[in-house]
């Protein structure tokens, strides 16, 4: 493969260069929902994404491990309540993901 061809390929964002953690449909749904709000609780995210308790919990754990979401414990009245929020890192990762995907589709 010539150097010129390599440059062209490097310029194109292939699916390999995108964030696979976000690319998974359920997590993309979660990230999108959280991106447009300040924060939401677990139940709200369940209703919005249509995911089951177990599924959402598993995806949330992965996103939390990656530092994309913050899990905030607070009290509503006397009850403990868990709010979910996209971190700055998560917002940047989502912006980057959108940019790369747009670029990828534009260059197809």
């Amino acid at each position: 493969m010539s150097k010129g061809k390599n440059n062209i390929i490097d310029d194109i964002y292939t699916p390999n260069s995108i964030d696979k953690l976000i690319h998974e449909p359920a997590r993309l749904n979660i990230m999108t929902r959280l991106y447009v709000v300040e924060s939401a609780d677990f139940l709200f995210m369940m209703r919005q994404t249509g995911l089951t308790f177990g599924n959402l919990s598993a995806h949330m754990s992965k996103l939390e491990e990656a530092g994309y979401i913050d899990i905030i414990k607070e009290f509503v009245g006397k009850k403990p309540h868990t709010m979910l929020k996209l971190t700055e890192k998560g917002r940047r990762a989502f912006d980057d993901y959108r940019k790369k995907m747009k670029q990828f589709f534009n260059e197809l």
Partner: protein
Amino acid sequence: MIEKIDLKKVEKQTYRFTFSDGLYDMAYGCLLIFIAIAPILREILYPSYIIFLILPAPLILILGKIYITIPRVGIVKFNLNRTKSKNKIRLLIAILFPITVVMVVLTTIGIYNIKVGGYIVPVGAGLFALIFLSFIAYIIDYPHFYLYAISIGLGIPLAELLNPIFGVPLDYIISFGISGTIILIYGIITLIKFIKKYPTPKEEISSVKG
């Protein structure tokens, strides 16, 4: 796939979802019904009948959100722009809503003996209510409020127009009661659908570990 994700649309859908419980319709329908029967209530409960005009709508909203909506669909906090708009509206409503209701009712019933003849007062009051509620509809981005604006904006001059024909209290019942009942029934149906669609979850997820 991603280029089809319209974030503004998603945000708007998420925001509108918070109105899908029908509580706003129920609260407003209830308010209109109490305005419709205000002349009757005034006869029986003067002067405490004013409480029936001011209290039920906020009570339906607050209690409904606490005991019906939040346990079923959870809590969401919107970004700063939405929050600021909502706070402005809350302040505006807190100041103007009770004043408007009391002024409209007292003026049309005739307790305020304003020396302005004809339809100037009811048309003015109707116009004020129309503009005020349309302004709220625009800021909170909830189209049903335009319908509310029209129902009360037209209802006030209509009551005045019907007064010579039907007299009190039928003029009020026709002008506000019909639209109020329709809006209330719509709200109740929406709430029933909402409750069926979103039952209270069995899992204890309010304190879920992420």
